């Protein structure tokens, strides 16, 4: 056996956590620069996917808002044949207020009713002729609590209200409320299932695009493992790359969404709302925007992670 000299090893200057992270980051950035085309492709795919999903989200947010506005108009009105005395009004009010679901109450005297009528008929004086406070009924306008404004619970409320004595007639937006709520329920189901379907498609497409990026660097992955890189070491730059792609993709998507919104969407709402003042579509609130951003990052990260599984199996 030949003699073996003691091995002289250079002092290992191990890098700390910060140095390692720095290394992974710069590796990721270099990778992106060296594989610009595939990266642009991936970022483009991610941003397009996120744009579609966030457009859906925008529609959804606005539909919810319109539903809220509409349901505020759901109001039950109790009519009385005669003006109520303060005494009667007081007892009736307390009875109605004790009903489950009552929100605000407003008593409309015959005089007020006339004023309103006149205001509405402004400029059509001919129609107003002969209309006196006397022929208009006094009424109590009942605002319902939010959870009682829809469908069956509205109906139940009205039934309970009808049992109170002294009310001549009850009116409420029966039919159209029900139809509108049905429509909104339907829209919710469609929206959510469409969203889920889209999300699945998006994850699939993005994972495949990222697979492409990683496939083009199979050699590198293999070599790294051959020179003794741990699994974590090999994966880290790719995961960071995925996060960068996801972040870039979602920023791009949000930018596109904003310009779409500012460009023409924001006044497209005129078609779906009643009140011209509230007609504008609102933009996504900050909470949703940060959700979209985080979703993008998660998408890039998960895409990289699942694609790496295919290639690192030692």
């Amino acid at each position, binding site marked *: 056996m030949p003699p073996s000299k003691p091995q*002289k090893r*250079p002092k290992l*200057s*191990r*890098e700390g956590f910060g140095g390692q992270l720095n290394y992974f980051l710069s590796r990721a950035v270099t990778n992106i620069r060296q594989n610009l085309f595939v990266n642009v492709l991936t970022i483009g795919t991610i941003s397009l996917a996120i744009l579609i999903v966030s457009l859906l989200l925008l529609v959804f947010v606005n539909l919810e808002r319109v539903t809220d506005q509409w349901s505020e108009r759901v109001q039950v009105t109790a009519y009385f044949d005669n003006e109520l005395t303060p005494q009667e009004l007081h007892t009736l009010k307390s009875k109605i207020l004790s009903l489950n679901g009552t929100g605000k109450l407003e008593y409309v005297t015959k005089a007020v009713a006339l004023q309103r009528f006149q205001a509405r008929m402004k400029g059509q004086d001919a129609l107003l002729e002969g209309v006196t406070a006397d022929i208009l009924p006094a009424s109590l306008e009942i605002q319902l609590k939010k959870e009682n404004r829809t469908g069956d619970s509205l109906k139940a409320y009205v039934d309970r209200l009808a049992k109170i004595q002294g009310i001549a007639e009850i009116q409420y937006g029966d039919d159209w409320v029900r139809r509108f709520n049905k429509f909104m329920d339907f829209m919710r189901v469609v929206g959510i299932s469409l969203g889920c379907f889209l999300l699945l498609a998006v994850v699939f497409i993005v994972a495949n695009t990222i697979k492409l990026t990683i496939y083009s660097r199979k050699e590198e992955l293999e070599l790294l*493992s051959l020179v*003794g890189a741990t699994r974590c*070491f090999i994966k880290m730059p790719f995961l960071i790359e995925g996060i960068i792609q996801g972040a870039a993709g979602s920023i791009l998507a949000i930018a596109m969404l904003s310009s779409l919104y500012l460009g023409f969407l924001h006044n497209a709402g005129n078609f779906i709302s009643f009140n011209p003042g509230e007609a504008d579509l609102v933009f996504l609130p900050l909470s949703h925007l940060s959700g979209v951003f985080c979703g993008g990052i998660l998408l890039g990260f998960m895409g990289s992670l699942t694609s790496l599984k295919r290639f690192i199996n030692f």
Partner: protein
Amino acid sequence: MIQLHNVFLSYQNDVTALSNINLNVAKGEFVFLTGISGAGKSTLLKLLYGALKPSRGQILIDGENIIRLPASQIPFLRRKVGVVFQDFKLLPNRTVLENVALTLEVLGWGKKDIGKKVYHVLKQMGLEHKINSTPLRLSGGEQQRVALARALVNDPKIILADEPTGNLDEESREQILGILKGANIRGSTVVVASHDKKLIGNCHRRVITLDKGHIVEGSDAAK
């Protein structure tokens, strides 16, 4: 340093590439592994750095039984073993510096130290002027030396070289053999797979001969 005991290996297609291999390479030794093409030289080297698992038998590297090594420990085996691959496996889109640096980056070395060490090793190989070229712009002999530099830049305990003098000219062969001998003198145990009879003949080292997956000669130092 390297011990194989009753090792068998069959590929999926039932080709028995190695059968009943018993082998002992001591620390600091320099051995040749020879045999005609298809004898199983590359397969044997792959066993030693954990790229293949034997169908049967035991393998000890540096006192450690690598058969039962969990996947998470394989990287640490490979850090002890520098490999010069038959096909070099240089990354074409990285410079010579970056290719050689990989071995040290994996160990978590700092950038400055990597630069110094890589420069030093490349200088020993007469390649310091090519440090920023990419592998595709180098000659075969130069590429081989870069692959060699990457394998021994971290002074591994074991160096495995698969046909390191492949189809190189006389001068390059001598140079590469010199580098391997130098690494051996600095303490690495070296195994060179080669069917280059002339090269082996000039060297006067132990020669292990494989034929159809059997060791026919030189399985133990004490022969």
